[in-house]
């Protein structure tokens, strides 16, 4: 008896588990039945001191529309698919500034901008066409508040086909709604949440100089600094190859060259070299500020000068040195002369730009200003001639691998290394090339290329990089290879900026039929079945039977009467 009951219970259990499995299978299959699934990247969502910017929503469930809609159409339940190639910036400007209600925006970027496409000479011309449009678009979107989801996607065959279909439908003048069919774009994603305590990580490396016996004083230090994080309209696509990937790679290459020199005590200079990879660059160089504050007084005083690198990868024939101390200052003159001499030998010009610091203004346009505020002599080497605005030139959609010109970049690295070496070893003004080409100390193009490629495939927006991100670990390891001592400093980003997550999602595109189509189909099928029924009754039982089906009640009355 007990055995049978146990067996029955086992059977029931297995039946229940089978049913559960079937339900799960059914549910799973329901979820992945879209015609097309595309990776999409969301527009950044952030607050500055509580003021909201960017796209405030993430989930999407609306019909697709294109730019060819009839004027005056209601687009509050439509997602407008805009290929950037055909974009008329005035449309977006108008929609954003007039705050028209919109279901969402989906920008389609040409395939050339994909992160995996490392290089392509013939497509660079195509990029020029889109370049200006993208720059303006990015600026507009980053500084606007959009109460609907905005996404970026790359063009591919499937999405192009969908867009063509949508354009055709729109051309007939019928906007896509539930009753007219078309395509439906669905992104099932949770509401975006604030990133709690976004961390910024500064990495510093220290190359010890040669201390002569009996030298009680601390050796002077020269600092080379570059910020490695980026900010752009689509944080999952902000790789910033030039701003500031070029600065990071230049720093690493200089570190490699000097580590070769400093490994031999005979060629070790009498200066310590401090390498700093800072984060928080776009946010008024917050990371540099915190890094400098962590120094003790003696170290800060021992810094002779600091060179900050900011975008040195895509210039033509002139670089700029930006300073905040007046150019008549002796130290500034010395630095500038050193750089100019080397630049002349390499065949290009270096200009000097002076921008006074306003202590009361929280805006920090260049990294050297953070040094200057603590009375450390510093200068920034950059291809930009004017100070960028807040959140400008921080590595956006356009700043991908093609943007960096390797020849000019190698010349920048030579400039920095040579100028520093001549200062350290006391060869100012002398025509001695320490890092000559074809020597063992030459700048290594393949090293540069591989690091530029890596940086061009790693989006580096600081709030979305965790403390132990593999990229930060890679930078740390690389710096540790070239320097004596590496220290990582983890800080929390200043409270002025708040960021929201959900930077990447999957877009499902469904082709839907309208409700009218379903009703029509029901009508057709109903009539088909009725016709079939009548046909069968007539052929098998005869026409009288069919008629009698409708006349039954009256015949009964006749019978009783």
């Amino acid at each position, binding site marked *: 008896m007990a055995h049978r009951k146990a067996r029955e219970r086992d059977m029931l259990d297995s039946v229940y588990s089978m049913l559960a499995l079937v339900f799960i299978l059914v549910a799973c299959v329901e979820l992945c039945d879209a015609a097309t699934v595309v990776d999409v990247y969301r527009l950044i969502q952030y607050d500055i001191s509580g003021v909201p910017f960017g796209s405030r929503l993430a989930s999407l469930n609306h019909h697709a529309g294109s730019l060819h809609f009839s004027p005056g159409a209601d687009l509050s339940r439509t997602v407008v698919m805009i290929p950037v190639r055909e974009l008329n910036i005035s449309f977006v400007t108008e929609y954003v500034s007039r705050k028209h209600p919109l279901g969402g925006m989906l920008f389609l970027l040409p395939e050339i901008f994909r992160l995996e496409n490392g290089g392509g000479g013939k497509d660079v011309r195509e990029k020029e066409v889109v370049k200006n449009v993208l720059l303006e678009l990015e600026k507009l979107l980053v500084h606007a508040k959009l109460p609907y989801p905005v996404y970026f996607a790359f063009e591919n065959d499937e999405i192009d086909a969908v867009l063509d279909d949508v354009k055709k439908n729109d051309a007939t003048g019928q906007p896509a709604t539930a009753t007219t069919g078309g395509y*439906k774009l669905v992104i099932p994603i949770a509401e975006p949440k604030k990133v709690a305590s976004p961390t910024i990580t500064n990495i510093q490396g220290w190359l010890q100089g040669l201390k002569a016996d009996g030298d009680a004083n601390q050796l002077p230090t020269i600092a080379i600094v570059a910020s490695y994080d980026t900010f752009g309209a689509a944080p999952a696509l902000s790789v910033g190859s030039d701003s500031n990937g070029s600065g990071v790679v230049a720093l690493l290459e200089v570190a490699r060259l000097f580590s070769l020199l400093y490994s031999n005590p005979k060629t070790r200079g009498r200066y310590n070299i401090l390498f700093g990879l800072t984060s928080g660059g776009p946010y008024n160089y917050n990371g540099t500020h915190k890094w400098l504050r962590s120094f003790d007084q003696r170290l800060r005083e021992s810094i002779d000068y600091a060179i900050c690198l900011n975008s040195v990868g895509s210039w033509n024939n002139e670089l700029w040195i930006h300073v905040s101390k007046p150019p008549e200052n002796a130290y500034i003159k010395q630095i500038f002369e050193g750089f100019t001499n080397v630049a002349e030998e390499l065949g290009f010009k270096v200009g000097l730009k002076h921008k006074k610091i306003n202590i009361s203004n929280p805006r920090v346009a260049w990294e050297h200003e953070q040094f200057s505020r603590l009375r450390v002599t510093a200068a920034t080497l950059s291809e930009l001639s004017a100070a960028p605005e807040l959140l400008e030139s921080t590595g956006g959609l356009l700043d991908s691998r093609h943007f960096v010109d390797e020849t000019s970049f190698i010349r920048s690295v030579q400039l920095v290394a040579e100028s520093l070496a001549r200062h350290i070893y006391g060869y100012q003004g002398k025509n001695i090339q320490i890092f000559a080409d074809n020597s063992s100390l030459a700048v290594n193009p393949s090293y540069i290329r591989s690091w530029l490629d890596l940086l061009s495939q790693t989006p580096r927006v600081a709030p979305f990089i965790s403390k132990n991100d593999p990229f930060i670990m890679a930078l740390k390891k690389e710096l540790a290879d070239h320097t004596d001592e590496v220290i990582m400093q983890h800080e929390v980003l200043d409270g002025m900026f708040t960021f929201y997550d959900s930077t990447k999602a999957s877009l499902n595109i469904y082709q839907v039929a309208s409700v009218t189509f379903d009703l029509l*189909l*029901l009508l057709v*099928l109903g009539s088909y079945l009725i016709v079939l029924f009548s046909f069968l009754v007539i052929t*098998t039982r005869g026409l009288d039977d069919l008629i009698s089906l409708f006349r039954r009640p009256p015949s009964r009355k006749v019978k009783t009467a």
Partner: protein
Amino acid sequence: MTVFHFFNCAILTFGPHAVYYSATPLSEYDTLGTSVKAALVYLGTALVKLVCLATFLKVSETDNFDPYQELLKALIGFIDVAGLYFALTQLTHRNISQNHKFQAVGLGWAFADSVLHRLAPLWVGARGLEFTWDYLLQGLEANANLVLSISLAALGSLMWLRKNKPKTLIPIIYACAGIVATMPSITSYLRRGLGWQFPKVVGFELFTSLVMAFISWQLFSACQRPSA
């Protein structure tokens, strides 16, 4: 897309069976039991076919037409015919006229085929958001299948249940039965070997099913005349 569409496709796939049952004298003579028994026989036949296919057939990576595999599939398809023979002759039916017996068996056979082959894809696929014509075409295929099953059952009953047949018609009966029995192989050849699209194949199936139904109707009435 959505439950509405699922409902539409379901009535297209299964509606004709119900309509056939209620419209013809089958409902008057209460032949439901026969249909149910035929459906069960179809289930058993499908199981046997599955085992044979798994044992003898190679899994092909590509989707083109392999004549040997198709020949094997056709041979295994004749198990269908054996099942139909079993349903028509061996099952004990109540006193139903031969006319209605083959209809009931054919109906039960076609209904079981539709449920087994088309209900699961319909349930899983037609309720999603994405719209495709596939499920409506599948429903039309189910209709063609119903007509084919009934004509096969008619020819089967002619072959095995009717003793006195006019001599001239016997080869025609066997030929038609052969054609109808190998319909699955023919459609798979059209789809894979010639590369026809699904709507074209369904159109072909509908057309041939109507033609075969007409031919078997003529044969049936021709054989009925001597005894009548």
